[in-house]
């Protein structure tokens, strides 16, 4: 597989899996207006995944739906960060989930996605460059949404306590987003993990600072990490824990089983 296809799989799989996870919250949000607002973000992510799978389809990789639903976990190239279950229970019963963790996940992810899309918009592969430009416009609302909420929650003692409690679990795998797996910098995507981290950290750190959350995040970051940008250190995953290389958790296996349950009930059928 070439670098372009690998890159597109990374982007498509990230968007599909985070969109799927986000959709599990549908109808369970803490506030009705907010439930509606977050539901648009889930739709956007699935919509973006669809667009990336279509690019792969045009490159001869097969039907977009089949790429989304039919590939086993070992073929998936999303980061572990997006596949983790929200917590105990499921979307069907006793979802003992944490909205603070959801906000952190989406704030970090959408900042990452915007940074990645900004670079993809300069790709020599025109279909990708054009798509990235379009999609990145929609990230504006996502980022504004997460920013507004984090700022608001950080203003209350209970909100800050919840954010602090949720942070370590989310932060532990944030570095995995930046792994490029087997993709090497090229005309398709001309940057490395460390420079992508710099772009991200330079955007994230001042925001956290403004909300009084930077110390919290910086102290959660691992001391042994090799790359530090804007006070935030990057810890890339070990190769055998790198989702970009097809190493995944049981959470993804369970997610894929759920996602393909109906589709597999009548293989090859039209839905």
């Amino acid at each position, binding site marked *: 597989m070439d670098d372009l296809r690998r890159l597109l799989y990374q982007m498509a799989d990230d968007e599909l899996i985070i969109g799927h996870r986000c959709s599990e919250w549908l109808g369970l949000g803490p506030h009705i207006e907010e439930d509606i607002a977050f539901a648009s973000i889930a739709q956007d992510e699935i919509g973006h995944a669809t667009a990336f799978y279509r690019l792969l389809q045009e490159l001869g990789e097969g039907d977009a739906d089949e790429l989304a639903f039919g590939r086993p976990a070992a073929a998936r190239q999303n980061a572990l960060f997006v596949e983790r279950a929200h917590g105990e229970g499921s979307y069907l019963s006793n979802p003992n989930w944490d909205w603070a963790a959801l906000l952190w996940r989406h704030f970090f992810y959408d900042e990452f996605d915007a940074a990645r899309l900004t670079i993809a918009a300069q790709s020599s592969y025109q279909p990708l460059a054009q798509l990235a430009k379009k999609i990145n416009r*929609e990230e504006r609302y996502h980022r504004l949404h997460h920013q507004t909420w984090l700022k608001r929650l950080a203003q209350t003692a209970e909100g800050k306590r919840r954010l602090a409690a949720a942070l370590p679990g989310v932060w532990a795998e944030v570095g995995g987003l930046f792994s490029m797996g087997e993709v090497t910098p090229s005309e398709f995507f001309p940057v490395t993990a460390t420079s992508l981290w710099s772009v991200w950290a330079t955007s994230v750190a001042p925001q956290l600072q403004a909300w009084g959350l930077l110390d919290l995040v910086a102290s959660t970051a691992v001391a042994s990490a090799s790359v530090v940008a804007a006070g935030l250190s990057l810890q890339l995953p070990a190769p055998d824990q790198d989702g970009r290389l097809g190493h995944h958790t049981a959470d993804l296996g369970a997610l894929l089983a759920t996602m393909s349950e109906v589709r597999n009930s009548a293989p090859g059928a039209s839905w």
Partner: protein
Amino acid sequence: MFGIYQVFIQKDHASPHVWVGSVDAGSPDDALLLARESFLRRDPAVSIWVVRSEAVHATDYSDPDFFASESDRTYRLLTGYNKQNAERWRKYKKSLLDLERDFVQD
């Protein structure tokens, strides 16, 4: 309180209040009277709202990405389905197409 008041007119009970303009007025009560003469010299209405301009929070015209809607959203529109559905129904029974399909109108 003297200031600028934004004016919203409801033309009948089936319609929402719609912004029509603004007036300079000394108080909310003044603004209601002035709005009546500024905006309702001809058209009928059932209600006026006036809101001090300072109370209006707005998006920024210089940030068009706030409204970005770049992905295909036909999946959430009637038009994303009705043509294809109609073609499928045709296969079942031609006469069904003659049935009134607009549920809201009746």
